[in-house]
């Protein structure tokens, strides 16, 4: 009977903790599904959920970081230029918030800045590559200086290289070395602490397979 009492106490306790301090659990759960789902509707819902988490725990850099990341992810799917920019304005705002709480930039916030610039460029590359291409490159460079072991930096460099036309030095063949470099670094990362970003491994593995496919064709 004591056991039962304890269980019910835990059950009651669980009810209250969801309302209280632990943001890590919902953050981890929400972000992980957001990161891996391919269903756009669901991605949008989870992105909004991350927004609610950031609003509820505004003093944690991580809640703003992941919300910003979600906005960037969603922005790539938004073809309307004004909406695309509006999403990225929010991403910028959330990123700034995260940096303000951290007190300084780090490799992860640089990678995020680079992604925002890249997405701004991709909506209208002909008009924007000059301005945002530079911001994108500069932030990747900053990230590398801050931590040359960050796999997301190489992963993202790989993605952007892959989607750059071959004539401009892009393509799968040129992208593969970046993904492979990232793979080794991802292997060293643990995926248990949401406060230490570890996303990207799953996608990286997918892109390596994609890049190798073409190698066979050649």
């Amino acid at each position, binding site marked *: *009977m004591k056991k*039962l*009492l304890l269980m*019910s106490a835990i*059950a*009651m306790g669980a*009810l209250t903790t*969801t309302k209280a301090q632990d943001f890590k659990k*919902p953050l981890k759960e929400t972000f992980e599904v957001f990161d891996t789902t391919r269903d756009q*509707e669901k991605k*949008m*819902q989870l992105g*909004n*959920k991350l*927004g*609610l*988490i950031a*609003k*509820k725990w505004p003093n944690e850099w991580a809640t703003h970081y992941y919300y910003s990341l979600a*906005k960037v992810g969603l922005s790539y799917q938004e073809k*309307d*230029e*004004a*909406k695309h*920019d*509006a*999403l990225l*304005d*929010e991403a910028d705002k959330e990123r700034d918030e995260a940096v303000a709480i951290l007190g300084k930039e780090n490799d992860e916030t640089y990678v995020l800045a680079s992604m925002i610039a890249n997405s701004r460029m991709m909506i*209208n590359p*002909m*008009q924007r590559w*000059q*301005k945002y291409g*530079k911001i994108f*490159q500069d932030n990747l460079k900053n990230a*590398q200086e801050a931590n040359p072991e960050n796999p997301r930096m*190489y992963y993202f*460099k790989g993605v952007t290289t892959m989607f750059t*036309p*071959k*004539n*401009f*030095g892009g393509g799968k063949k040129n992208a593969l*070395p*970046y993904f492979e*470099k990232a793979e080794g670094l991802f292997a060293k990362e643990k995926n248990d602490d949401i406060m230490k970003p570890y996303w990207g491994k799953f996608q990286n593995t997918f892109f390596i397979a994609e890049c190798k496919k073409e190698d066979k064709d050649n």
Partner: protein
Amino acid sequence: MWAAIALQSQISKICMRLKLPLLSILPLLLISVSTWAQTRISGKVVDMKDKPIKGASVSLDNTLDGGTTDSAGFFSFETTETGNQTLVANDATHSTMGMPLVITGAPITGLVLKMRTAVLETVTITAGSFASGGRAATVMSPLDIVTTAGSNGDVVKAMQMMPGTQQNNTDNGLFVRGGDAYEAAVIVDGIVAQSAFASGPPGVATRSRFNAFQYQGVQFSSGGYSARYGQALSAVLELNSTDLADKSNVNLGINMGGLYASGTKRWKKSSLDVGGSYTNLQPLYALASSNFNFYQVPVGGGAYARYAWTPNKNGIFKATISTTYNKSGITIPNPSSVYGDTGFMSKLGDRINYETKDKYLFATATYKQMFKTKYSLLAAVSGSYDSNSNKFGPYPLKTEEYRTQGRIEGKDFINNRLSLMVGSDVQLYGVGKQMDSFHFRKSFDEKIVSAFAEVEWTPKYWLAIRPGLRYEYSAMLKTAVLAPRFSAAIKTGPNSQASLAGGLFYQDAPNLYYLSDITKTPGMSYAAHYIANWQYSKSDRTFRIEAYHKDYQHLVREYYPNADSVFVFNRNRILNPSIGIDNTGHGYADGLELFWRDKKSIKNADYWVTYSFINTERLYENFPVLATPTFIAKHNFNVVGKYFIDKIHTNVSATYSYRTGFPYYDPTLKPLKDNFLTGTTPDYHNVALTFAYLHSFGKWFSVFYAQVDNVLNTKTVSGYRFVPDGNGVYTKQSVGPALYRTIFVGANFSLTQFSKDEL
């Protein structure tokens, strides 16, 4: 729900065991039951026009309970919250919307939330200026310029396709809103660029000295410009040089005008560019039939070096040095017959060899630093020297010009709505002109000291005000002037705004007057600008309408004894020392301009249309009466289109330019006063095409381009020359550009350092 019931039965069992009255635990139980109860909340989110908003986040404030709207705007979610709550709808492009809600446990359905479109950007002042803030950045990027057909990659030529400027292919410079070419200043990183154009033979427009790719962007102000600048009655064209180079690279190019090579080395915090070029227009002139008789086609060479250094995150130092040399020679008819000159010129033959040699050196250093995102500092110094050793037949004509400048500016960003800028600049410049064997050598040295202040205040997101004041002192003229400037903008809708700009703009008289032996030195002239515009801009489509009035005062007038009957039309005339000079000249310009740019409607395409109407007259220089000058066309119209064909990596650009005729003076019509500049040349049409094909050979990225100017080979007439035969009978000869249809092909190869170090 079953869980709650199960729990309840468990609890009642515990109570029984513990012999506790069930009632004592009941309040707790009720709370927990209500906490567990899920209330469904559903409804719809629409905008002010009742259109559904997709992807909006709808939630109870400060909870994790929420949903996302579908494509029909519907949302639905469950919550365990009760009591007084706030339902919040969030969407990136709309203002956040809140709605109070009382949750009792019963489902709440049929809610309708209306969201207003967000006003994202604060208003920016645009009157008179084609530089806008925010994302639109600058009016033209280097790429815009080089891909504009008809511009031939020349920054200034590309500006002739913007509203407010006159199409002109026989004279150098920008003719803005009724202004003469000397009234527009070109400014590089806050420094006035001396002799912005390479000198060439008279009547042949030369390229400006600015390579588009050395600049991040171009800001063109056709009037009402900032108090930061002065000594330009009409307009300023601001060029901002590039910062640190992105990557190390090697760049090679060849075209029908010559060869060039450059290299860039990038270090961690600094970069160095060096480059050299050789120009020879022989191939170009061989292909097109020139209207001028070149015995020496233009040839020349140039070299430059640029160093950029970022000592810290918010500071940048830039230093540039460049030098060029050009020469050319044409045979022209002896102008003495046209002007009825009986002096030295008439002793020369019917045809005269005109030779030009131009040496130019320009060095600048600038430093910009931002302190704690609150203060910024700009310091700049420069020196330039230009020497022209021309020859008119056997007579040497030498002009030497120098200019040294310093500028310092500080800006205090008091808060994000208010900033104050103060600064000062000093310009020392002079020109010496020598015509040995006869006449004189004459020179002048001028020192202009200025101080300026400008406040930018955005009290509301929909209102911006920028008042400024500029003080200028001329040491040569011993004159001090105060020039107030003002501009403001107000939002008229989410995507539209209206702007105003105006002020007084002072400038010394043209150099010509300080290089003559005339007894009186003319003082400064000034122009008052009044500009108003309205602009609609939404997702890469911009429409703008702008109207202005310009009032010119204190322009220089020359008085000739025979002014009633003779007018010498020569923009390079030498002043007779005996004539009278004063500052009583005046003029006006009224105009209306339209601009439409659309980067959106057609994928991979960008086009713009400009139209400028102007009504202007002035009484200045050697004009006998108030008249419209020879460089003014009432109507100017341009269509510029660019299209990138993805599949074949080719950029195609086409430009159509049209203007009505220029006024000209026909000396056969008498009396002069009634017939002064009353003739009009035929309308001008020009179609230009550019193709650029991008390809990479291994690591070499290459661009092959072909430009055709005046595709239809139209015989453009920009004026007439009336040559008398001595018996008072005139022959009318048309004056046109050096070349009609031109074809220009070339290629550029660049090798960017492969970033192995990134791995």
